[in-house]
């Protein structure tokens, strides 16, 4: 395949050689792609809460409300990042079974997964996960409910800001609302391969 490398690159050079001028990179700012009217003068958390609702996600600021929500949905068995569990455990009462190791041979046993987020994006209602802060990629994906614990100070206002903060992590994923499809007759169905319920628990 090193032959293929040489042949492709030489064909590319050959194709471009006759061009007298190459198209220049435009000078621009990504500010043109920011929903400035939406964000102007507003608190990032307020915008984030509004926008995540728009994509059928849920923003909460109180762990007690989270527990309430899980109980109401009948989601009693789940996974929690071991680093988060000591602070969250006191809010979980009777009837919950929470594991701190995700066993991939039993993916269907977990109704919820609680993991830390690396941040959030207000403009789009997105939670940001990366490899370093996420304790298990599968735990944040396979259960029906995913709870991302977001630090309030890490809410970026817009998408270009979040791009600028991608950092050195080899795997960053932005999750915007529950997993969904419209493949069948254009009808929106949530919970395809990933979570059917996406919750952001915003903490200080």
């Amino acid at each position, binding site marked *: *395949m*090193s032959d*293929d*490398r040489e*042949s*492709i*690159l030489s*064909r*590319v050079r*050959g*194709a*471009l050689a006759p061009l007298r001028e*190459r*198209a220049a*990179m*435009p000078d621009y700012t*990504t500010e*043109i*792609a920011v*929903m400035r009217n*939406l964000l102007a003068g507003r608190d990032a958390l307020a915008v984030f809460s509004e926008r995540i609702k728009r994509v059928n996600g849920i923003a909460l600021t109180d762990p007690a409300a989270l527990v309430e929500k899980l109980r109401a949905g009948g989601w009693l068995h789940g996974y929690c990042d071991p680093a988060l569990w000591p602070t969250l455990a006191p809010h979980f009462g009777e009837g919950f079974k929470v594991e701190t190791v*995700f066993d991939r041979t039993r*993916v*269907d046993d977990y109704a919820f997964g609680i993991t830390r987020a690396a941040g959030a994006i207000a403009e*789009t209602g997105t939670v940001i996960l990366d*490899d*370093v802060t*996420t*304790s*298990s*990629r*599968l735990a944040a*994906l*396979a259960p029906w409910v995913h709870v991302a614990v977001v630090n309030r100070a890490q809410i970026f206002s817009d*998408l*270009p800001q979040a*791009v*600028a903060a*991608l950092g050195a*992590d*080899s*795997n960053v*994923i*932005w*999750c*915007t609302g529950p*997993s*969904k*499809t*419209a*493949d*069948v*007759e*254009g*009808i929106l*169905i949530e*919970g*395809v*391969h*990933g979570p059917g319920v996406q919750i952001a628990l915003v903490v200080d």
Partner: protein
Amino acid sequence: MKFQQIDQFAAELKADTRAAVYDGSKKGHEKRTKLLFDEFPDPNHLRRVAGKIKQHVVENLDTYLPAVEAKMKANGVQVHWAATADAANAAVLGIMRARGATKIVKAKTMVSEETELAHFLEKEGIETLETDLGEFIVQIDHDHPSHIVKPIIHKNRREIARSFEREGLGAYNDDPETITRRARTFLRHKYLEADVGLTGANFVSVESGRIVLVTNEGNSRFCLAATKCHIAMIGIEKLVPRDYDLGLLLNLLARSGTAQEVTVYTEFISGPKSAAQPDGPEEMHVIFVDNGRTEVLASECRDILRCIRCGACLNVCPVYRQASGHAYRSVYPGPVGAVLSPLLMGEKFAEKADLPKASSLCGACNEVCPVNIPIPDLLLRLRNKAKEENIPSPGTPPMGAWALLASQPTAWRAALWGGKAINYLPTNLLPIPALRAWEAKRTLPAWRGGEFRKWMKGRARTPGASAKTT
């Protein structure tokens, strides 16, 4: 008289299919327009800038390709090159054989459709599964996708329910939610059993070597959470210079493709998983695929390589809406396909030289394109190429007599005057098959030959008229 192939296909299309394609594409287009124009004061400015970025990349691939390769290698990614579809498929198989892998789960990638990867791997004894819901349905039906973003836009829920029943995925049930849940249950165990996860890439940043994947279902994430080896098959034109440019392009891709501000999942992957992460690939391979792209690059139609595969031009195209995607006999249907598919044929250009003719050149595709590709211009260049190569064009009425008339002003004026006779002739009885076919479904408007010329003359004498013309 023979019809053009695409006309013939459209004429024989089932009413159900035509309705499904028409409704799906129209809805997609209307939502896109609303979203873009509600939120940005000048969305056309965004498209123009994005078009310039991608054109810059296309015209500088000779420096960007080696640069991104070096960056990826530094990130711990193994980089492969494949000049042809066969070479790309062989590269995937080679990586799998080296690992002793027998099972692969695939996210949606258009380039793997070009190479017919799934088909190839199955023949080699590799268990290959499409995981995007639409692509999964296409696979179990041994069908082909008919839209870049909505692969089963041509199918209704009843057909899908019958396929699921046939495949043992439960008793007949055509509720879309039930269909989706059954696919969820079936596929999640397949991810966990698989050895390799295969994806494409929507963008690749030269600066960081990151590949960017956008999905809504979460299937590509599942591939990359459950398997130990990631292979990304990527067309050589997918590059963007910097991470910074993703801020603009991601915005445009989601809005143009599915009328979303951002897709549900946007992944930025620069290498194997981090050491502390329990899930995900320990090994990452990128295969850069040419498969005809360098020939497109050498042609006068290289602008088409800007394409980011959003499907907006399909949704807006009056021909696509009536003919459906399969009418294009190619992986890429619609206006983008009418340009790209014949070019990707290389020496067999003639086989698809009819596609650029299946267009009224209305220009709607250019107006919605997030990277502002002048598709109508490119279609004209390809029509010209076909003419110069003397490729026959069945279904095109002979234009010789018209050309003769139109190049002689006196004869033209006489014909315009004489044309009035057509108002009194029984045109449906004339021995001109094309006219009869046309008249079978439409009424010929009354002849008003010469009116435009009269109007033009009067207009030129009106003071200030020239200032109003643009």
